[in-house]
């Protein structure tokens, strides 16, 4: 039983996700605890795999053959130091979101909450599957599951969510098909779908054009899925109009997992030597990501409501990660990898805080934030911790990932990337302090704040199971920041081969 944990990670949410529509007919109240149980089970499985993994030497990995067929013939699950970290991020985020989302789902969705939970769990299964799988086509199928469930989750939102979902559907399936095409181009030259075998076979084909086109299309597909700047038009509407619970789950995870897939393909399938020396496009891509960072931040500045602003911050964060990886220097790649987990928790913290505000205040326009500090102190403090982490104030993890990204960019001579990072941190600072001002002074930037109106606002916090996960996440942000060293040494350092 010991080595079965790897597949149990995916099975727990899958089975419960399938059982929920059946159970929901008997009694509806059992659905939420069941969902949490399944995620705890999955967390336990991830924990055990992690302990097994940490016993082995750093660069080794555990693999699991589904159906007991050897690697290239059956599908293989591979867990190494890199994706165990991403797994932890996914599991923690989804567990906290499920705990957080009980009241929000009842308030926004009412009766078909059971189906929502089922889609919720299947989305998490899809993400977990993507992270663990070692087979390129299986990754496509799981990508489709994750996107289909996310179309469902977003379409349940209000107002213009439908049109946003339709655009997301078109862009999403376009991205998935590009990925499939890329895998096809590799498949036609190598004949195998297993990533490790690809890693061994590809070096002989580095000069062939088909492999180059395959690589370009896989990366293009992932860029569409992660909403990298020129292809990001679907993300802002999709995540800001989705129901709060869905936004809290998808915003931190969906884009980060596609970044993970891109990095996995760059490091473990096409070796770093191919990506950085054979292809000479990494400077152009770093320039594109700097543009992405600056554009994302400027768009965020011009937004009127909170969720839209956060979505554009996500677009900027994606620019960090892509730029970090493509700088080609070891520090940059480590910074990007570390940023995946850090950013997942940051976005979760911010979206949960906005969820609480929307739950209490009703809408997320900036005007409705007047005097919010007095009304919901706990939520706002956690929102601040998230904000500081996005800006990059030292104790939080945002600072350290920025540290690595800047030093990576500096060593690889990408000075424009440093400038973009600095400008975006400044703009983030302006964004968050604008909100602090409105919350603190109780008046929009153009009105005259008077102190009397602030007196009347009384304490009106969200129920405990909403602000407790929020506090936990902000704790994680700080702890992650402080223990970067442990994470770096035994998780990330040995992923990146010396270049």
């Amino acid at each position, binding site marked *: 039983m010991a080595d079965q944990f790897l597949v149990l990670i995916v099975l727990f949410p899958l089975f419960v996700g399938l059982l929920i529509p059946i159970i929901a007919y008997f009694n509806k109240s059992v659905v939420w605890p069941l969902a949490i149980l399944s995620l705890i089970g999955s967390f336990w499985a991830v924990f055990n795999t992690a302990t097994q993994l940490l016993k082995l030497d750093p660069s080794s990995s555990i693999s699991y053959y589904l159906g007991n067929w050897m690697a290239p013939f059956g599908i293989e699950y591979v867990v190494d130091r890199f994706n165990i970290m991403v797994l932890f991020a996914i599991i923690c985020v989804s567990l906290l979101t499920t705990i957080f989302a009980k009241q929000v789902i009842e308030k926004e969705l009412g009766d078909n909450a059971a189906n929502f939970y089922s889609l919720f769990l299947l989305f998490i299964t899809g993400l977990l599957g993507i992270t663990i799988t070692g087979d390129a086509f299986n990754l496509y199928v799981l990508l*489709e599951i994750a996107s289909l469930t996310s179309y469902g989750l977003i379409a349940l939102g209000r107002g213009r969510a439908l049109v946003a979902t339709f655009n997301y559907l078109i862009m999403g399936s376009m991205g998935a098909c590009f990925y499939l095409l890329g895998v*096809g181009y590799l498949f036609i030259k190598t004949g195998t779908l297993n990533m490790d075998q690809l890693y061994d076979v590809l070096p002989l084909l580095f000069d062939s054009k088909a492999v180059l086109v395959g690589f370009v299309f896989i990366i293009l597909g992932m860029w569409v899925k992660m909403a990298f700047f020129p292809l990001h038009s679907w993300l802002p509407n999709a995540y800001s109009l989705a129901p709060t619970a869905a936004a809290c789950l998808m915003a931190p995870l969906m884009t980060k997992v596609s970044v993970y897939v891109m990095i996995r393909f760059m490091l473990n399938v096409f070796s770093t030597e191919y990506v950085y020396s054979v292809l000479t496009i990494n400077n152009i891509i770093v320039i594109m990501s700097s543009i992405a960072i600056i554009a994302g931040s400027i768009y965020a500045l011009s937004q009127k409501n909170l969720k839209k602003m956060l979505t554009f911050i996500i677009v900027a964060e994606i620019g960090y990660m892509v730029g970090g990886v493509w700088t080609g220097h070891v520090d940059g790649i480590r910074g990007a990898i570390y940023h995946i987990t850090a950013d997942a928790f940051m976005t979760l913290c911010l979206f949960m805080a906005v969820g609480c505000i929307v739950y209490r205040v009703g809408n997320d326009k900036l005007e409705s934030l007047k005097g919010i500090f007095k009304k919901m102190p706990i939520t706002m403090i956690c929102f601040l911790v998230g904000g500081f982490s996005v800006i990059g104030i030292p104790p939080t993890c945002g600072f350290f990932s920025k540290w690595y990204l800047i030093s990576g960019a500096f060593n690889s001579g990408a000075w424009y990337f440093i400038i973009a990072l600095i400008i975006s941190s400044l703009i983030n600072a302006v964004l968050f302090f604008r909100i602090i001002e409105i919350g603190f002074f109780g008046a929009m930037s153009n009105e005259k704040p008077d102190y009397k109106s602030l007196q009347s606002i009384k304490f009106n916090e969200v129920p405990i199971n909403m602000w407790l996960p929020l506090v936990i996440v902000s704790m994680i942000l700080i702890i992650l920041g402080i223990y970067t060293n442990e994470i770096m040494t035994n998780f990330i350092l040995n992923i990146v081969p010396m270049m």
Partner: protein
Amino acid sequence: MFEYLITNYNYMVVVFLMMMGLWAMIAKKNLVKKCIGLVIFQTGIILFYISMGAKNNSTIPIIDPKYGEAAINYANPLTQILMLTAIVVGVATLGVGLMLVQRIYKEYGSINEDRILEKFK
């Protein structure tokens, strides 16, 4: 040149289909036409995989003693499996897309992208 055309005709048709699908998805204003473009794009990729796995003078991958044991005279089963999944996924996405089209029509009374955007203003 003619020889090149013959041997790679399949792949050219694949590329052409995909580009037609992509063009429809981006340029067409009518939502149903976008869905059609979507499915054409997917069938293009499926054609690419299948033509990858096709072998000259080979029969369908059902092993029976008449054709013997060697793998040469059977078509490639792996690409067919992948494409079974791709077709079903395509239909699932199509179903969801068409459902969205219906809901959008019910909400905004039109399935032309420009009309819908005007309604937002």
